[in-house]
């Protein structure tokens, strides 16, 4: 009952924020300026440290997240609000609160795209009544914290696990979660090693922002922040290790949300998953100057009813699906 009220409140807030818009977005950088509701106080500083601007949907999801109670302390490079223009180290003030680490990937366009996808699919997620959720490769903790806030805290009976191979990332994630009053069990491990046997078939939602950047295979085996992005040949080496693990961990009704790059050959990833029995659809599609990102949702075929009646890869045939917007 309490949960339902909370869910209704969430719905109401998000309705006001206008998040109930088309699932598939294709936001170009040059469209980023025309957001008519962009200028709340939270958006005064939208210039990221890398000089790029937030896209419209990023701003939208950030606002939504902040309204849900996320304090503006993580993702300092993008969410930072009260930044002193004279500050030589603009991230400092925020990082003190939640801890950053030079070897930990800070939330960036790909992280935002994944959270946007979760927000876009929020209605389905709330109805999904997940018992266990997991993020593989939590980095700063931005995504798992956002997911925990989107789904509501533990009073709704959802429990979260998260893993990262980088010990520094697990520490930062712990602080990020704590700062926002949510909890996830954090395991310092490679993908889900050590959890795979006992957690088989238990995850209702898995989110992954994998290291997808095409690199040499040597870089894949580096330590520190490199593991957050080095994806090997076609950016697929780590993705191809993750997919069978996800297949094991997902429950019969489990969903996977994964970030991919066009260069990863996402249609081929969908084919791999299809052979394992999964249907798929694009939840968020976003092109920036640097990269073209897709967030794809996978679920076991035959359970299409939970996906708002969207046409799926299984019903359309692969080629035609992938070509549609």
């Amino acid at each position, binding site marked *: 009952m309490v949960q339902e009220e909370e869910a209704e409140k969430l719905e109401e807030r998000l309705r006001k924020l206008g998040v109930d818009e088309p699932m598939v977005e294709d936001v170009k950088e040059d469209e980023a300026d025309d957001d008519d509701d962009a200028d709340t106080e939270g958006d005064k500083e939208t210039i990221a440290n890398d000089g790029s601007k937030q896209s419209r949907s990023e701003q939208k999801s950030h606002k939504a997240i902040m309204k849900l109670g996320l304090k503006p302390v993580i993702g300092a490079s993008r969410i930072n609000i009260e930044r002193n223009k004279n500050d030589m180290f603009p991230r400092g003030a925020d990082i003190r609160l939640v801890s950053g680490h030079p070897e930990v990937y800070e939330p960036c366009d790909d992280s935002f795209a994944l959270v946007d996808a979760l927000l876009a699919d929020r209605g389905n997620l709330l109805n999904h009544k997940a018992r266990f959720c997991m993020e593989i490769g939590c980095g700063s903790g931005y995504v798992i914290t956002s997911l925990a806030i989107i789904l509501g805290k533990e009073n709704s009976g959802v*429990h979260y696990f998260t893993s990262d191979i980088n*010990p520094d990332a697990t520490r930062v994630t*712990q602080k990020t979660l704590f700062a926002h009053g949510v909890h996830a*069990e954090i395991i*310092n491990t490679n993908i889900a*090693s050590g959890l795979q046997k006992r957690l088989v078939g238990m995850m209702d939602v898995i989110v992954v922002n994998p290291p997808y950047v095409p690199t040499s295979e040597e870089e894949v085996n580096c330590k520190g922040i490199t593991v957050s992005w080095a994806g090997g040949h076609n950016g697929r080496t780590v993705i191809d290790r993750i997919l069978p693990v996800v297949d094991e961990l997902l429950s019969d009704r489990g969903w996977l949300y994964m970030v991919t790059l066009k260069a990863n050959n996402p249609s081929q990833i969908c084919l791999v998953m299809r052979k394992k029995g999964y249907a798929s659809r694009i939840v968020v599609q976003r092109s920036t100057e640097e990269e073209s990102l897709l967030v794809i949702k996978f679920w076991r075929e035959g359970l299409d009813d939970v996906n708002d009646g969207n046409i799926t890869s299984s019903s359309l045939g692969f080629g035609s699906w992938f070509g549609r917007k």
Partner: protein
Amino acid sequence: MRLLTHNMLSSNVKGVVNGFPLRLEASSWVEKEVEFNADFLRSMFPKIDWPALAGAAQKIGYAALPDTADATMLESEDFLKKFHHALLEIHVEEGALVCPESGRRFPINKGIPNMLLNEDEV
């Protein structure tokens, strides 16, 4: 690390056949209140290795769990409360998880178990 997680972890060292349950060595732990959810506990019960949970709870001085349990006990509010406390409210902060077969120690620091393997263990 909650005892729920202890119950879900097993030794991932190459060649280990019987890597569960990991022996819990806890030097510090805290208790944090978590909202009670009977439905969750009932649905989790079949997935929980009871002797592993009861054994781990005993290691940190929580001896209220029976050595064995079956599904009929889930009708008891008292049992559920104890199950809830052991599973979710005890957090191991410092210690180690020890592989029952190889003796390999997986450290727990600041509540995070480290299951990373060396190259020769993969």
